[in-house]
């Protein structure tokens, strides 16, 4: 069973993510953190997967992933954010996140994204994927 930690400061959204995970047979909750500082523990607990919000009090989610990725860690990271601007998306993916989904995704989309990360894919909300493609187009 895939263990998942959550880094999310909104209690309601935290609750929703917990429900999605608990109701699925493939996943189990590891730890829940409300800030990136607390979530540095991920390097000790080593869950299979972590759902990370970007806007957090103190250190942001991108910085957290960058710091954790600097160590040898099996954990995969999935960004789940309200932000959909190009620079957030690009820096999040650069920092080492495996996927980027938006908070306005449905429960089914979130669950599908988690499964895809586990399968080694890079799930993205349709709009995020479009932005990534146009970002690369603009780079050429």
């Amino acid at each position, binding site marked *: 069973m895939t263990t998942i930690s959550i880094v*999310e*400061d*909104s*209690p*309601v*959204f*935290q*609750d*929703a*993510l917990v*429900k*999605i995970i608990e*109701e699925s047979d493939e996943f189990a909750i590891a730890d829940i953190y409300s800030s990136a500082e607390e979530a540095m523990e991920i390097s000790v607990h080593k869950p299979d997967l972590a759902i990370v*919000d970007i*806007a957090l009090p103190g250190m942001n989610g991108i910085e957290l992933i960058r710091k954790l990725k600097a160590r040898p860690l099996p954990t995969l990271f999935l960004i789940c954010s*309200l932000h*959909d601007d190009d620079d957030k998306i690009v820096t999040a993916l650069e920092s080492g996140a495996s996927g980027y989904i938006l*908070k*306005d995704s*449905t*429960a089914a989309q*979130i669950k599908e994204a988690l499964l895809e990360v586990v399968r080694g894919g890079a799930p993205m909300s*349709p*709009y995020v994927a*479009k932005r990534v493609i146009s970002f690369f187009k603009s780079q050429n």
Partner: protein
Amino acid sequence: MIINYASLDFSSNHRTEYAYMLEGYNKEWMSNGPVTTATYTNLDPGKYVFKVKAINPEFIGNPQITSLPIRIIPAWYQTLLFKILFITAISALLFSLIRWYYLARLRKQRLEYEKLLAVQTERQRISAEIHDDIGAGLSGVRLLTELTKQKAENPELKSEIEKIYSSVSDLSGKMKEVIWSLNTDNDNLENLLYYIRRQGEQLFENSPIELAVQLPEQIPDVNLKGDLRRHIYLAVKEALHNTLKHSSANHCTMSINVAGELLDISVSDNGKGIRSTDHHNFSNGLRNMQKRMKQIGGNVRIENMNGTQVDFTIPLKETS
């Protein structure tokens, strides 16, 4: 200054005449007839020599000239020192008046700027807080509602939950629009056009209609205030929404052009056009678009040939 003079002429015929000049003032001799006074007014301070001569026709020969050196001492207000002090004082006064005026203007501008900055900072703060706290909360509630709906077996309950779900989704979308219009970072044309494109793409994401968006290659750097952006966006959204709901089209093109100070947005589809049966829905939408365009000094035109085409023409220069 009056100077009295007289010659020692004791003859009785009284035919002695005089001429005088004030060296330093007169250039030539002044004939004065038999009068024995010379009057000068308004003489500038300085050194003069008063010269007078008596002319008697019975006397032949060069008349003798009598001289009287005169020095007029300047009044206190005519001294150089006073003049220098006076000019300095006036200059200093003028300088401080001008300085005071500019300083006052500068202070006023700074106050206005600070006020504007405070409003902007506050808008940023509010939008960031709404975005992060309420946005995440609403998304959470929407997800929880979705999960509850899946578990509900009673169809009546399911439909009630569905209503809650779509209301929350709706609220969440509207809140995002408010945040976007509040955030002063977005106060420019480029941001507006990208936002319209993004919202358009999202609106058509799960629909059978293919949306093609054409943006200008070069978007000029134009500042646009939040309410202006909002009116333009909502008017265009209304047009896109009409296409989505009522056109039965399979293709929609939104083309955006900037010509000089005019923004031109056209939304055209290959659908059935506006039929008399849709008239009620359509006239509501049209009224909304017209109202918004009127508020920002723009114009909306609708053509109903091979589908529907809605054209917005919006002046970018502020009229206020």
